[in-house]
């Protein structure tokens, strides 16, 4: 209490001088608090990224020092049929999995939002697969897709359909991995659900008073209000699907005949099986640019369809 009085008594210039000193102390403390991140950012992120940029212009196989070869890695990548194959696989996978995942998770969240009973039960059930380690769900789906004894083909056999070879078939391996991915719609579903519940009730009330039925309220209130959430899920979906790895690594190793050679898998093979670090770095930068361009594209189009009013941010 005594201290309070002295501070209170010291008005004018004294206070100003003290605040200067306090501001400096606060700034020093601030830097100290964020120091772990700053160091981590420089050592484990910015440093490696710059190194990776440099490596991408070199021939580097880990045992010998890197030698500068200019753009050769990038030229090689453009002429590498496996790069194109892996880009094709990743693109097809994304184009199918992202919209389907967005649609299914949206529908489930919408149904759950109809004040259903046992909401938390359904929510848990739909979210459960997301909690399972990717390695485990891969092994599990390997068993489900087993051509001879897997549950899926046995179920098909019960209705007299000869199931495909799934993961061993060039035609069905990628669709099998897509199905496995859709098992995890619980992630975006939960985010949609939160979005739906963030919509102020008075908007619905106002719409009802204006004579809007359930369908029109959905079209003119629900949809516009959750477009930021759709945008968020879309962006996450694209970034995630372009980096799929575990399923293909464990189940198919990119096969058969490169039918499931995902881009990240090919990058991994180059870096950690053939130790072509220079080439792998170039592939990593190509991936980075692709993801960046896709994100920017989504961001640009978002102006046309994402509705921002600030409700979701200021809640």
């Amino acid at each position, binding site marked *: 209490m005594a201290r309070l009085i002295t501070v209170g008594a010291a008005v004018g210039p004294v206070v100003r001088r003290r605040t200067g000193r306090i501001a400096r102390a606060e700034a020093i403390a601030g830097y100290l608090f964020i120091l772990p991140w700053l160091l981590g950012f420089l050592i484990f992120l910015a440093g*490696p990224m710059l190194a990776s940029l440099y490596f991408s212009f070199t021939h580097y196989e880990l045992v010998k020092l890197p030698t500068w070869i200019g753009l050769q890695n990038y030229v090689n990548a453009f002429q590498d049929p496996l790069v194109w194959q892996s880009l094709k696989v990743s693109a097809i996978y994304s184009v199918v999995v992202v919209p389907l995942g967005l649609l299914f998770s949206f529908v489930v969240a919408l149904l759950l939002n109809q004040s259903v009973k046992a909401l938390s039960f359904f929510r848990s059930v739909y979210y459960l697969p997301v909690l399972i380690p990717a390695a485990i769900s891969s092994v*599990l789906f390997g068993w489900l897709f087993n051509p001879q004894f897997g549950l899926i083909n046995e179920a098909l056999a019960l209705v007299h359909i000869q199931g495909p070879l799934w993961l061993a078939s060039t035609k069905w391996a990628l669709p099998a991995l897509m199905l496995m991915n859709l098992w995890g719609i619980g992630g975006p579903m939960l985010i949609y659900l939160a979005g739906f519940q963030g919509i102020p009730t008075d908007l619905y009330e106002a719409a009802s008073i204006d004579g809007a039925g359930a369908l029109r309220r959905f079209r003119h209130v629900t949809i516009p209000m959750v477009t930021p959430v759709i945008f968020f899920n879309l962006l996450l979906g694209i970034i995630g699907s372009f980096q799929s790895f575990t399923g293909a690594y464990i189940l198919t190793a990119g096969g058969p005949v490169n039918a499931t050679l995902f881009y990240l898998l090919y990058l991994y093979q180059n870096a950690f099986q053939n130790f072509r670090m220079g080439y792998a770095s170039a592939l990593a930068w190509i991936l980075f640019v692709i993801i960046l361009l896709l994100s920017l594209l989504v961001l640009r189009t978002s102006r046309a369809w994402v509705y921002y009013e600030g409700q979701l941010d200021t809640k």
Partner: protein
Amino acid sequence: MSAAPIVTHAPSIWQRRSTWGWLTRSLVYLVLLAGSALLMVPLAWMISTSLKESVGVFAFPPEWIPQPVAWHNYTDVFTKAPFARFYLNTVIITGTSLVGQVASASLVAFGFARLRFPGRNVLFTILLATLMLPYAVYMVPSYVMFHALGWVDTFLPLIVPNFFGGGAFYIFLLRQFYLRQPRELDDAAKIDGCSFFGIYWRIILPLSLPAIGVVAIFSFLGHWNDFLTPLIYLTSDKNYTLALGITWFKGQYVTDWNLLMAGSVLIMAPCLLVFFLAQRYFIQGIVFTGVKG
């Protein structure tokens, strides 16, 4: 974030108790139940397979209730594979990484949320930008660095980086939470002669335990489930984590699906347990980050 139950307040499509309303209501439940069943079949089949004798695994038509129940699969996993070792490795890596992540993320978040210093906004923007950065871009040079340090095939590359900031996502999450605490608390503490660390330690941290819990849960799941990083850095069997161990096991016992599934159940059990014990915080955390993010 105060873990209040989520209230559904969207108007339901069956406000009027009519035949039409009853029909749509039934339809909604029907679709939800069908979807749940579809999603749960793989898990049920996993548990069912894990309790079968080797002969029963290949029975046609498929048997859902194993006859007899082969509980011994769950102990066989430990004798046929260094499963206990994998478990221990995973616990060590997950535990230390979690501590490092929670501790450093909460410190950094406090700096960004409560203290003013030149360049704070620029640095925070950089931090947010790193959220978008694919791991693949710095995966290769990180490996080169850890290789040069002689850390390959040790736990260090998996653990040490977590002590340096603990990940942009967690910093962001905690900062958002710290920002909600009233400023007056800081001022009052300052007047009472509390240091900046004291404000963090005695005031903000105790108020933020739910958020810290959310970060701890995410961090636990992230490390427990991680596959790519251990795959890159851990090369000898004795260092494998569970996620790597199950693929090793798959290579050794190609057709022993019952053992593979028993192992899988044991690996995912802690994740499900954590989810059910801390479900409320967990959902709140996702809701919080999802909407705010």
